[in-house]
């Protein structure tokens, strides 16, 4: 297999996209959601994927996303055929007495949890079969129901063990996904193991328990001494969240790096080095941008509201709620709806620009394919998979890349 080239250099991943480009794409797309009553989301998702895929290069060759908005739209319609009866059962259950409604809703919730596993596996298959690199598409074998049941079982086990089983779950599901992933005729193989993340995970798990106990002690002290206590509790809460962010970044970066590096594509190896500090930097930047945006918006809104109330100032003390509503006129309702949608849109844009894009960039730019010439002889195989899974994910309110 690997005799085709001499002294192969590794392929280093590159991401050549501009954040402003994605910003324009998102801004236009979110505006178009309004006149299309939300239908445009299928086009927006397709455009986002085209953008990300086409700007990600390995060995100088870009990925290509071949999926279309139409496919996802139809997938959504098929998914509705599943959701309408499920929804009907939910609606029926809520009219029952509390016991029946409670048990019924719990059972339905578990069923939906199972279904999300199914949907995520099928959706992954859709995305893989719509991904081309060097003219060859990826595909995925394996059973979505088997994956869903395994994931479901692991969720229960992880819950019962207070999280201790997590590394085993993560490694097992990762292996199942990637051992059923193919690049043309070449099957991928992953040897991801719980040991890859056991160190940081169990360290932080123990730290978490210790800190949680300490936190409870602090709250206990605060109840005893209300004055100084409030400050103490806020400082402790802040530190606790910082700790959680830190723990997440360290564990997630370790998991991604080790697991992805456990993948081989025939004689080609995959290496990913994702640093915890890169993830932390990403979250800090997102928090800063979010804060600045929030401050700017509240200043603008405050000014607008002040302007409105100044114009009413003379009567304001005597005015009832209704009169104020009346003064606002019919525009008030539309204004409220518009403001709400604008908030959602701004948050979605910031999340896409400073979390999703940043993460994609980090992963893409830190991937290396060793001995890439082994891939030269891979041949085309696999069909485009149906978009039902994508539809399910959309109906669940997801919209993963």
């Amino acid at each position, binding site marked *: 297999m690997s005799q085709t080239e001499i002294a192969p250099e590794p392929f280093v991943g590159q991401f050549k996209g501009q954040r402003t480009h994605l910003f324009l794409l998102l801004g236009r797309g979110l505006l178009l959601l309004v*006149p*299309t*009553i*939300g*239908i*445009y*989301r299928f*086009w927006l998702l397709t455009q986002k994927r085209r953008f990300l895929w*086409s700007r990600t290069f390995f060995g100088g*060759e*870009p990925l*290509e996303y*071949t999926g279309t*908005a*139409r496919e996802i*739209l139809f997938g*959504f319609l098929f998914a*509705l055929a599943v*959701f*309408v009866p499920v*929804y*009907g059962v*939910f*609606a029926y259950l*809520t*009219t*029952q*007495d509390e016991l029946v409604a409670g048990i019924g809703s719990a059972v339905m919730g578990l069923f*939906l949890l199972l279904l999300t596993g199914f949907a995520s596996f099928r959706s992954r298959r859709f995305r893989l079969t719509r991904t*081309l*690199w*060097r*003219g*060859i*598409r990826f595909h995925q074998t394996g059973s979505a129901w088997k994956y869903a049941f395994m994931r479901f079982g692991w969720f229960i086990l992880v819950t019962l063990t207070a999280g201790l089983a997590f590394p085993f779950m993560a490694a097992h599901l990762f292996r199942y996904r990637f051992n059923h992933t193919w*690049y*043309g005729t070449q099957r991928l193989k992953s040897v991801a193991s719980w040991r890859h993340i056991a160190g940081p995970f169990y360290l932080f798990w123990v730290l978490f328990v210790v800190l949680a106990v300490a936190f409870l002690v602090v709250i206990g002290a605060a109840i005893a001494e209300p004055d100084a206590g409030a400050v103490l509790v806020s400082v402790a809460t802040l530190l606790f969240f910082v700790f959680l962010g830190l723990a997440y970044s360290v564990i997630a970066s370790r998991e991604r790096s080790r697991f992805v590096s456990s993948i081989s594509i025939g004689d080609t190896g995959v290496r990913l080095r994702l640093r915890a500090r890169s993830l932390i930097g990403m979250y800090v930047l997102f928090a800063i941008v979010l804060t600045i945006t929030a401050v700017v918006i509240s200043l603008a809104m405050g000014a607008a509201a002040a302007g409105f109330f100044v114009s009413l100032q003379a009567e304001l003390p005597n*005015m*009832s*709620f*209704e*009169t104020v*509503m009346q003064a606002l006129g*019919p525009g*008030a*309702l539309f204004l409220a*709806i518009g403001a*709400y949608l604008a908030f959602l849109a701004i948050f979605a844009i910031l999340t896409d620009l400073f979390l999703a894009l940043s993460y994609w960039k980090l992963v893409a730019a830190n991937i290396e394919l060793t001995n890439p010439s082994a*891939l*030269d*002889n*891979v*041949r*085309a195989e696999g069909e485009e998979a149906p978009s039902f899974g994508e539809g399910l994910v*959309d*109906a*669940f*309110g997801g*919209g993963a890349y």
Partner: protein
Amino acid sequence: MADIRARLHDGEVARTRQVIVEVAGSSPETGTLIIRDQASAEVYARWPRHALFAVTASKTLLRIGTTTGAHQNARLTIEGAADVAALFDTLPTLAAKQKANRAAQGRMLVIATAALGSVIAAFVFGVPLISRQIVALIPTAWERDFGDRIVGQAEEFFAQGSGTLERCDPRPGSEANRAIARFVAAATAGVDTGIDIRVDVVRNPVPNAFALPGGQVYYFSSLLEASSNSNAFAGVLAHEIGHAIERHGMEQVVATAGTGLLVGLVVGDVFGISPALFVGQQLINTRFSRDHELAADQFALGVAQRLEFDAGAMATVLQAVAADDVASRAMSLIATHPLTDEREAVLAAGVGPDLAGKTFFTPNEWTAIQLMCSPDQLGTRQNTNISGPNSEGQNQRDVTRKSSKTLPAPGTGKGSKTGR
């Protein structure tokens, strides 16, 4: 034109081939793109020009595919501003295809939007009709069970202020309760729907009256105080009995479930609980409830006609309550017709002149009913003018928040809870 250097992926093998591209033939219809190896000049492929399309096109990178080749995933990659520009100039169909594709996407978007718009319109107009059919299939015993179950919810709902659903006069044999029972029996005589009407006058400072699914009707003490004469009371009671008998509450429950699904469909989050869901449901239900209010008014007028009393006074009570409800007023601005004007016209037209001055309740009965909720512990007796802004801003805000419209048909508020 000079030969252009490019990379070929033939869609069959992952290997990258360094090639030279040559455009042969002058017309887009008959010409071909000849792709040969850079070193050996061996021809790898001939792609018809009319079948070419641009996969990605920027100033410095152009990727081309073909629709007729054996391999739909074959790609030709041209890099460098000069080569890209040269090829784009030579192959005008590339740009035309891109334009045509964009137009096709736009058409599909318009069609999909129109389809969704039609579905929404079908829901807005069809949900009332369909929910009526569905409700016809629901056994009345089941409806009554359901009503009993949500009495608890209704109690919680109205107990947030100073109000309760505690009956003013729990003795079934009292004169007032006997008078009300006489009215219910007369109003429902000859109407066989299997719904068993029960009326409770309850102590509550909110001017309101409503019917739950299954036939339970509540008349609030504050509304009783605002009812200027016995005919106003009888008219409003008949209106609520109309809601109960025509099973509007169940229809609302069914409709709320339907609109919840619709809004979920639009937003792309079938099980999400978002404010968009709430607003959407309100918009659709406003329309729906207007039909219900008109139907209940018609029923009340029919009863008045049959029992020969003057229902004209009912309009003033209904309007007084309607005017206090900010939410319904805000919503009626969006609805095609304001709620109260239309109903006022119906009520005005429905009261025959021959009934002027006639009453159903005897003066003694009416006095007994008026005294049901005294001794008065609410302290709102003097405040009989319930319309217009007054010192009870707090209570009125509660009305606004809790019940989305006047004299809520059953299921209001609960509807959005049960419909999820």
